[in-house]
């Protein structure tokens, strides 16, 4: 046996592997790692592993902030596929493509597999012992670091990990928790706060007969796309609701609208006031708003509105009459209406329509109030990035931790974030892959992916009650030198508060204890252990918490008229619409092959960035598809391929976000451009958030041209074939359908 180079052990390994990778064997692709633990489970399976049978474990998808309950299909100790968890009210058993890609994050070939430390200009691998020793040295109790000199940047956060982060900051006596999301809902929250008194009301699309959406891409990128998609499906069933979308660039939601209206970016509020003006002429609505507001609104007659917004005047009355006819309705605002200097005002003006129509309480009401404020979600904001950037720039910070955010990539270049970060003596990144931010850090710690990790999550949009979605590992950790973020945080907390946390050797035990503490809230009667396992197996803790009351009164002061600078800047004549792709968001998952190859729904472009430009504008400038255009703002220039796209306002150009990575991995690096870099320093006045849609650009055609790689063929219509047939809504008899 030994002569042939195979011993019994290897033979068994091959046998064990054979079953699962038979498919690969035939293709010469088999990868037998000698002595690897991956081989063993098949020979002597671990508990719950039945070779050949797949088991579904409930967990939570952390690919975006919606916290959908998911199930991981596990076979032979490997997680293979994500499915929706039917017990989750958020996902309803469904899942989006971004969630599917969680397994590609897990098995990503470019994952960071061991701690790295900055040596010279490059990162060098170090052991965990060395890494933790360094951490202790720099921020440990003996380092003498003060609270104000330390900052912890995270992405949007919720659950018990957030508690640990908070506790760690507390132990340092630091208040510098910067929860940063590049695409945060903060402006909308601020507007909602003004109108309803809550951050986020609950939206009942299924109850509405008409949705008028001002740039809200709720099907693609909103608060909870999978949940809203299910609501949308109900909304489209008999009696079929009508969707009107008003936005500068067609989003996926706009593509599904019955009526899509192109509008100059930033003037959505004016349009809403124009509609309000028309509505207030109906006697039923005259007393719904304070007289002061009514008189303010009255100056927005259709002609004026049309002049400002670029929308045909008759459409103002048309939308108003739709709202008049179809009740109950719901009017929502989204990113493209909110991302302006007057974003909150825009959103408030839009929400005014709900108030006039009396939708509050019918299609809009309060979310359930979570009984556990300490684990409540922190949605993140841009202003925290700004605050941290200022602190760094002022040289106040001695050490920063960064987790769940990639600010070097997403911070606009005018902030000089990279340079400011370099001023900080000690930077630590907790990452899955060595992204742009990690490249700048002194210590880069590889943490477990979401499918290897325990955790708890609460979404900031809760469809029904409060749903705490539990995260449990769907498989053993793939790389021995990666660590749980929870464990690291616990270790860090123990640096200073060892006594308080001595009962919990690891994050698992901490989480378990914390979850069991919630038992009373769910009125669970069995033992603690049962509660824990029930929670894990169902994946969700559902709490029937009472709804928050939302404000019904609309203070006159709440509405200040949107100031629209509809001034043409001859140097920068175009509005830049940095569009959020539904599977890319801020670009953190750009290194997944599936997502790169998943065509953009509207342009069907893959593996690239592009600039959408209206065919008419393009024709006037002599631009053809594939021509490289120089899109220049005050803060930078991008060279992007043109794609002629009819669903965009002729005065706007749109570049999708999420691409243009320099250091994320083989699938993302060098693909496309990053429009974050050219954003102008335009800030929302009330919140200080970055006005994403406030940038003006110039467009210059270059002589370069390259073919646009897309799924679409040379024609974009059906060429007379009966492929997608459209039936007028008044002919269809949906109520008779099954």
């Amino acid at each position, binding site marked *: 046996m030994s002569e042939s180079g195979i011993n019994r052990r290897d033979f068994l390994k091959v046998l064990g592997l054979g079953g699962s990778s038979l498919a690969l064997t035939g293709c010469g692709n088999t990868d037998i790692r000698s002595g690897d633990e991956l081989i063993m489970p098949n020979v002597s399976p671990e508990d719950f592993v039945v070779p050949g049978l797949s088991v579904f474990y409930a967990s939570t998808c952390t690919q975006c902030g919606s916290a959908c309950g998911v199930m991981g299909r596990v*076979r032979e100790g490997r997680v293979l*596929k994500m499915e*929706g968890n039917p017990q989750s009210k958020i996902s309803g058993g*469904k899942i*989006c493509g971004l969630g599917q890609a969680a397994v590609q994050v897990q*098995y990503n070939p470019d994952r960071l597999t061991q701690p790295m430390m900055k040596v010279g200009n490059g990162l060098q691998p170090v052991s965990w012992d060395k890494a933790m020793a360094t951490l202790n040295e720099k921020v440990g109790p003996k380092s003498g670091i003060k609270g104000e000199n330390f900052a912890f940047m995270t992405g949007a956060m919720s659950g018990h990990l957030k508690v640990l982060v908070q506790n760690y900051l507390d132990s340092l006596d630091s208040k510098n928790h910067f929860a940063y999301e590049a695409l945060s809902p903060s402006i909308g929250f601020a507007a909602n706060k003004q109108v309803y008194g809550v951050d986020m009301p609950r939206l009942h699309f299924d109850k509405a007969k008409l949705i008028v959406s001002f740039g809200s891409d709720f099907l693609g990128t909103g608060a909870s796309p999978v949940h809203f998609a299910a609501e949308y499906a109900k909304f489209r069933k008999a009696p079929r609701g009508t969707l009107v979308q008003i936005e500068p660039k067609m989003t996926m939601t706009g593509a599904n609208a019955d009526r899509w209206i192109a509008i100059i970016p930033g003037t959505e509020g004016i349009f809403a006031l124009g509609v309000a003006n028309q509505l207030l002429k109906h006697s039923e609505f005259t007393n719904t708003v304070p007289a002061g507001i009514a008189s303010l609104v009255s100056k927005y007659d259709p002609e004026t509105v049309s002049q400002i917004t670029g929308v045909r005047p008759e459409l103002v009355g048309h939308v108003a009459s739709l709202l008049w006819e179809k009740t109950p309705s719901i009017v929502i605002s989204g990113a493209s209406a909110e991302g302006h200097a007057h974003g909150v005002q825009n959103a408030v003006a839009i929400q005014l329509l709900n108030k006039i129509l009396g939708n509050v309480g019918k299609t809009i009401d309060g979310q359930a109030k979570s009984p556990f404020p300490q684990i409540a979600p922190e949605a993140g904001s841009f202003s925290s990035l700004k605050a941290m950037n200022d602190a760094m720039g002022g040289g106040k910070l001695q050490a920063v931790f960064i987790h769940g955010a990639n600010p070097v990539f997403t911070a606009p270049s005018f902030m000089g974030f990279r340079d400011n970060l370099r001023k900080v003596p000690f930077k630590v990144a907790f990452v899955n892959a060595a992204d742009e931010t990690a490249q700048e850090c002194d210590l880069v710690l590889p943490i477990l992916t979401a499918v290897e990790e325990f955790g708890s999550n609460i979404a900031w949009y809760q469809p029904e009650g409060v749903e705490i979605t539990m995260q449990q590992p769907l498989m053993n950790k793939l790389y021995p030198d990666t660590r749980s973020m929870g464990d690291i945080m616990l270790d860090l907390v123990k640096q200073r508060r060892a006594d308080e946390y001595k009962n919990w050797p690891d994050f698992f035990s901490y989480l378990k204890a914390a979850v069991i503490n919630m038992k009373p809230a769910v009125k669970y009667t069995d033992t603690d252990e049962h509660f824990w396992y029930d929670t894990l197996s169902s994946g969700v803790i559902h709490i029937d918490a009472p709804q928050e009351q939302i404000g019904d009164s609309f203070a006159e002061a709440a509405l200040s008229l949107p100031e629209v600078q509809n001034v043409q800047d001859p140097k920068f004549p175009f509005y830049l619409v940095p569009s959020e792709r539904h599977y890319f968001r801020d670009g953190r998952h750009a290194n997944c092959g599936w997502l790169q190859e998943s065509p953009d729904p*509207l342009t069907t472009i893959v593996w690239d960035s592009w600039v959408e430009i209206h065919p008419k504008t393009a024709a006037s400038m002599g631009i053809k598809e594939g021509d490289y255009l120089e899109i220049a703002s005050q803060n930078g220039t991008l060279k992007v391929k043109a794609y002629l796209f009819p669903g965009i306002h002729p005065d706007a150009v749109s570049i999708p976000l999420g691409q243009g990575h320099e250091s994320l991995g083989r699938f993302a690096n060098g693909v496309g451009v990053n429009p974050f870099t050219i954003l102008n320093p335009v800030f929302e006045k009330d919140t200080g958030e970055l006005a994403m849609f406030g940038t003006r650009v110039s467009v210059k055609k270059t002589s370069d041209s390259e073919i646009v790689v897309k*799924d679409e063929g040379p024609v974009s219509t059906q060429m007379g074939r009966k492929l997608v047939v459209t*039936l007028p809504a008044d002919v269809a008899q949906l109520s*008779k359908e099954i």
Partner: protein
Amino acid sequence: MSITNLLNNWSFYRNKRPYRGQYDLNKEYSEYKWAMALDLDICTGCNACTTACYAENNLPVVGKKRFHHGQVMHWIRIERYWDEKMVDFPEQGASFLPMMCQQCEAAPCETVCPVGATSHTNDGLNSQNYHRCIGSRYCSANCPYKVRYFNFWNYPSTAWPAPLPDQLNPDVTVRTKGIMEKCTFCVQRLNEAKSRARTEYRLVRDGEVVPACVQACPTSAITFGNIVDPNSKVAKMWKNQQVDLYKDLQEKDNTVRGYRILEDLRPFPSVMYMERIRDTEA
């Protein structure tokens, strides 16, 4: 292979054909015929089905260059059409069409395959036998929907850098270069459900098994099931939409939405689409 067999069963061989419920030639009628109903009005074009298909069926990620060359392997693709009468803006949105193998009853691909690598299964699927395929690509040439995807490259050696192969679904083979592949209605799931049902002396229940795209679809726009079972949801929907699997031209009211794509070519597809609705008054 004997002449007696031929003579004795001549009328059987001449008359029995794999449609009209005669998939299993040894039975009078078949127990299963998988079919779909796809509501285009609630399909949002979000591509969740496509990604789910990549995950379930070990579809390779081909990369930008090969995608450009049309060598992409998406078994289900979302097509986006603009209205032909569009003036300036697509005021009624876009038309999304998820297009996968239509599992035609009289499949144009089946008859032309020189080696019989694609054929009808007993439950009415249009199957693709990878081992038998020699890569003549005639099936794709004759497919009206162009939903067959050929392995132009040896994807197993390039598409999954380690450790991505760990994600591959062991129930589905990885296809090497030179063979044709296409949507199977997730036949691995169907077979598992069928054998599970058989061990329990019953038929597969409605909704017990669905393909990956159906399972993922956030709006539940796709309904899948056994159309032989009159109580299945899909059978009811087909009946309700007045689409008959075995008719090439449907006689139906103009208010119902069901139709099948390129029906006039008479492939008898097993996927019924339901017309997209637009509120023309909006």
